[in-house]
């Protein structure tokens, strides 16, 4: 996110690869801090996920939505704090690849559920135990 262009140890500038972290003796504190923040956030979100199920505070049909939101948030935390994905221009390729992957994942899971659900509705099972 900084204005400077990344330079790796071989003295090259340009794009950064995913997982890139510029750890130098000066920035060691900063790097550890990043991981700590990520760890605490992820832990909180995990605890929240497990808690949502046990507490009666949330309207039952909303639980699934809530769980999905928490999971997406935690995946985001992992991507940003552990895998160092940013929105900087040098990360464009990494983000684009991720977006392509997510589109495919959504199409496969969503498509399968839709198609097979439709099928199950229309094609009656031959005997009830199925």
């Amino acid at each position, binding site marked *: 996110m900084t204005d400077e262009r990344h330079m*790796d140890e*071989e003295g090259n500038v340009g794009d*950064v690869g995913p997982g890139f972290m*510029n750890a130098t003796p000066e920035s060691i504190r900063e790097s550890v801090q990043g991981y700590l923040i990520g760890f605490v956030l*992820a832990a909180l979100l*995990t605890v929240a996920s497990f808690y949502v199920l046990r507490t009666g505070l949330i309207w039952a049909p909303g639980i699934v939505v809530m769980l*999905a939101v928490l*999971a997406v948030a935690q995946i985001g935390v992992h991507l940003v704090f552990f895998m160092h994905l940013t929105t900087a221009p040098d990360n464009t390729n990494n983000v684009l690849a991720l977006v392509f*992957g997510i589109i495919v994942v959504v199409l496969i899971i969503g498509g399968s559920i839709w198609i097979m659900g439709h099928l199950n509705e229309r094609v009656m099972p031959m005997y009830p135990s*199925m």
Partner: protein
Amino acid sequence: MSATEVLRTPHPLDFDPYKVGHGEGGGHDYVTGHGEGGPASKRVIVGYGFWLFLLSDIILFSCLFASHAVLQTATAGGPTGPQLFDPMSVALETACLLISSFLCGLSAVAAGVRNQLWTQVFLFFTGIFGLAFLLLEVRDFTSLVARGASPQVSAFWSSFFAVVGCHGCHVTVGLLWLGTMMAQVYFKGFRPNVMRRLVCFNLFWHMLDLIWVALFTIVYLIGEGR
């Protein structure tokens, strides 16, 4: 052109700057992804290639998730998931994997400053927590089978064991890789190719945790939430 040269530290050898996977070329736009700058550095190339591999791995998991979603109710008269899941064990596994992922990140910081001792220590504990996760999972599996929920019982349990087992296999392979990397760091030091592999391993390990987030949410929690 000149700005590039200012930014670039001189290459130790008077070699061709455009050899496979090295150098950044003579264009005026440093962001090689946009094409002006010539070949990207090897570190970027390796990282990006591995990133693509991880995406393909996520797509592989997505098929297993899709099967699990479709076969959610196909218990064929056998036990259902929520009847047999042990939420405490799942929570413990989650904690182990998250701590392992965090420690792995710290090892990357240590490796970044070329500290052999701390790199090894963090990698070692990364492995310990990974192993703990794996053992808990094996215990879960054996207890499920003992209570009559083996993958041969119904399509639901088939899909459950496939998706969780596939993640477990990844962790196992990751541990094997981790051991190999520790040996490499010890014998070869922090030379560039070892550093690149460490970055890849880090990504792999974080990705396994990321998959686990999706997994415990979809397989355990949402299954129970329904």
